[in-house]
């Protein structure tokens, strides 16, 4: 018995099953929508402040605030949630792999998949958008990665906690992220995208990006926002591991 071998088998199995799941098809639609928008509005344009601002706002308000959470949701909830819904989780729970490591294997399988989709499509949009996109790529990439980490972790937490995690996560993404995340005042701090947007607006400002009016959007400092996203990622996973290691999944049979 080799625990590392068992763990890596689980991570590989989970990655393969996620990559060939309906989640992949599900995320293609919003990604294709973004692609069409970028090609139509920004294809190969020369750099100008207006062009950069326009492209940045699309990336921040649509891609980072909507498409990234949808990608993380599709794979993050499916990694454990899929096994719960298919009732194959029982075959994993009776194996001699500690439960927290089962969750870490699932996370390890999900994260590279979501990151490669998010970063890959973001890179493609930036390439297609011409000079404005090329400037934007490196400016917003750290925020995109941190947001992806936080979302994937958060949706794993949902998956181990709720039976119908995808539905709960969709409600969260639409209500908390889209509605509360755009409310004035401090209520927007419940949304992950608020912290990502704080970093992105700060990164784009020197290139001419104007943040929303202060009464609508009071950004945090880059450092605070980055720590908050990292905290959500680590804290979410730790909480998920605690819940998963103690929880009885009575719905499996």
């Amino acid at each position, binding site marked *: 018995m080799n625990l590392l071998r068992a763990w890596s088998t689980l991570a590989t199995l989970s990655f393969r099953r996620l990559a060939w799941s309906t989640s992949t098809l599900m995320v293609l639609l919003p990604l294709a929508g973004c692609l069409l928008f970028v090609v139509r509005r920004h294809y190969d344009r020369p750099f100008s402040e207006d062009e950069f601002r326009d492209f940045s706002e699309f990336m921040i308000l649509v891609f980072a605030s909507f498409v990234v959470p949808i990608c993380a949701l599709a794979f993050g909830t499916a990694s454990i949630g899929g096994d719960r819904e*298919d009732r194959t989780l029982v075959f994993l729970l009776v194996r001699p792999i500690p439960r927290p490591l089962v969750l870490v294997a699932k996370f390890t399988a999900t994260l590279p998949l979501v990151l490669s989709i998010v970063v890959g499509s973001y890179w493609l949009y930036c390439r297609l958008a011409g000079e404005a996109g090329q400037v934007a790529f490196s400016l917003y990439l750290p925020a995109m990665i941190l947001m992806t980490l936080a979302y994937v972790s958060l949706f794993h937490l949902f998956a181990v906690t709720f039976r119908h995690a995808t539905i709960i996560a969709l409600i969260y993404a639409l209500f908390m992220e889209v509605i509360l995340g755009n409310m004035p005042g401090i209520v927007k701090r419940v949304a992950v995208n608020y912290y990502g947007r704080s970093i992105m607006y700060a990164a784009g400002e020197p290139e001419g990006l104007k943040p929303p009016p202060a009464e609508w959007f009071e950004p945090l400092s880059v450092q605070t926002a980055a720590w908050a996203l990292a905290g959500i990622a680590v804290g979410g996973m730790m909480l998920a591991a605690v819940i998963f290691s103690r929880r009885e999944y009575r719905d499996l049979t």
Partner: protein
Amino acid sequence: MQRTGHVHFSDQTHRVAGSALLLTFDGVTKFYGPVIGVNNISCRIGPGITGLVGANGAGKTTLIKLASGQLRPTDGKVRIGGRDAWSTAAKHHLGYSPDLNSFYEEMTGRQFVHTMARLNGFSRALARERTEHVLEEVGMADRAGRTLAGCSHGMRQRIKLAQALVHDPWLLLLDEPLGGIDPGGRREINELLLRLAGQGKTILISSHILIEIEQLAHSMLMMSRGRIIASGTLAEVRDLMRYRPLVVEIAAEPARRLAALLTENPDVLGVEMRDGALVVRTRNPRVFFDRLGQLICEHGIDVRRLQTLDAGADAVFDYLEQGRS
């Protein structure tokens, strides 16, 4: 032999096992919210085949889930070889075949069993070797190349058994493993389980069909409403049932003559005609059947059909439950 919620098999049964190879339930109670799943169960299960019998909803699956570490008892302790059943350490020794029909459907049977071996930490080569060995044992070696989605229920049952065996555990928990398997296949599986029991493995096998278990188990646990209502060796449990009332339907000619003869038997509680057949209630089935055989031979009665109407597990449990309360 006891008919209480606390069950202790005879020491002789498990002396060979020592404490290392025992599945033990120590005052185990499990609540699902306000509903009780199993109620104050204590027993020790050692090497050999133990049948866990009960009607649907009796608590068999809850007991097996507690033993496989999927559930934690609300009260009491479940131990596998002295280790808490919930712990990872206990799972090294556990092979579990669940009562569900879910798999990684896109895999072939062979890939599925191989994956389960790898999830037990086996190297690729050893996993392949063990996979082929157990597929051979469950009679699936030549059919394991099919995707699980395309397998029959019986084939899927065999694959479930194979994945439970692949890491060669000493404890096997099999929840309704014979459902959907044809009689020939059932015989093969029974032979395999008897062979494994002969190797000293501890096998707990659940079923709601008494006769299915009778052919296999050397000892029994009978459950009803979350409690163990009878336990012991097969002979001991049979003794308990020997004197339970039974309803027998007999289609015979001449029926009236047979009815008159049967009413003379003090163990017959009543005889009535129903759709041309006699429905006889007896309080002592063994004596009744002995006497019936004599009457048929002595009076030349032509029996066309003879069947017991309440011989199912439910009736047995009801009887034992009444005796317990």
